[in-house]
């Protein structure tokens, strides 16, 4: 099982050809209290780096981009009732959606956990 991160602070955890996507714990800290998440419909084809979801905090709306390309196979219904799960467990229970990867080679261009940690520290 691999977890990879983007420069836009999304993560994707890959098992077989299925990727689970969310925003990083660093990102939820920056966003503040999440009050609404707009998730992609099941069946939608997402392209790497393109808009996939929207996360709204009390203050503002932010785009979430697809870390890899693929077809959405599940959206996290729990976020509809309790968007604060994104704050409580950004990289666990607060996942956004799952997709079937159409081009797994895209993962090679993403950061692993250590590289992402260094990236975030470099931004601070």
């Amino acid at each position, binding site marked *: 099982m691999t977890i990879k991160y983007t420069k836009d602070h999304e993560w994707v955890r890959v098992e077989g050809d299925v990727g689970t996507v969310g925003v990083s714990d660093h990102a939820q800290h920056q966003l*503040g*209290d999440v*009050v*609404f998440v*707009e998730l992609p419909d099941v069946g939608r084809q997402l392209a790497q780096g393109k808009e996939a979801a929207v996360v*709204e905090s*009390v203050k*503002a*709306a932010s785009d979430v981009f697809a870390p890899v390309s693929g077809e959405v196979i599940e959206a996290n219904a729990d976020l*509809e009732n309790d968007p604060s799960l994104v704050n409580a467990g950004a990289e666990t229970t607060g996942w956004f959606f799952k997709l079937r990867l159409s081009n797994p080679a895209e993962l090679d261009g993403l950061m692993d956990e250590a590289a992402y940690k260094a990236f975030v520290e470099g931004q601070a």
Partner: protein
Amino acid sequence: MTEASESLKTTPLHSLHLELKGKMVPFAGYDMPVQYPLGILKEHQHTRAKAGLFDVSHMGQVRLTGEDPAAALESLVPGDIKGLARGRMRYTLFLNEQGGILDDLMVTNAGDHLFLVVNAARKDHDVAHMRERLKGKAEVELLDDLALMALQGPEAAAVLGRFIPEAATMKFMSYLPATFDGIPVIVTRSGYTGEDGYEISCDTSDAETIARALLAEDEVEAIGLGARDSLRLEAGLCLYGHDIDETTTPVEAGLEWALSKRRREEGGFPGYAIIKDQLANGAPRRRVGIQPDGRQPAREHTDVCDADGKKIGEVTSGGFGPTASAPVAMGYVDRAHAAVGTPVQLMVRGKPLAAKVAAMPFVPQRYYRG
């Protein structure tokens, strides 16, 4: 830790904000805390439940003196200033010749002078405007050596009463020179949250002492600009530059209550002819509350459409109301669609979001009525 960029001004509480780990952002030319580690949601809820302390020292505090400063000021605003009793205050508006709003402000009759509090982003404009228009009638002094804090919430009176006993029984919209642990202060019972509370003006050098004393009380948390915005939005209060500006009149903005009876009859303020006509015949558009169905917020500049998808207006403030526990917004719509309950559609990211015109405030105001 964030450092203030060279071009940003700071308030006397800046180092305290940093010590409290405030997340600093530029606001109206100042480096200000948008939130503290508690977060906007909890800061908002804490203010509604107990008491919150806000640094509003960026706002403009102005002294107006002269032979009859009230009569002079009335030439620029539609409020009854001459009729303001000593120690009482009133919300009013600087207007332009079209009846558009140049700023909104609080005016207090402080006895030998008028004490004004104006918006941070407009203070330089307002001072220049008054100096030009009131030349020879009133002296205008921007009180740069004063800080301003707001203590807001249902426990505010109990907390401030420990330091200033007479503050607890002050009337809403009244003014009191007092001492706080021996420090001279000016207290008004007013605010911008819809809750009971105070604004406390003091010398810049005393601000941190007073802030620390208030924050040491169990009920009080430091609150940032983020929660200040969500609190005032739930309370239905306008933010200058967003919900009101030079292109909106007081009638369009639903601020008829700020047009005092005598002034409506006598006029003598800028834009009177237009405002008189709008009072009699209605304005072409109205500021209304907007309640989206569901949980998705609609932000400022979202288009408001009728049931057929025709644009009828725009959201001017919108977000999530932590106390309403729902998205809340306000904006302008054509008068035909302004009735409470009218169904509208909000175009959020290209998709229509069902909403209704709603009564404001979204959360009942709880001002102290004695």
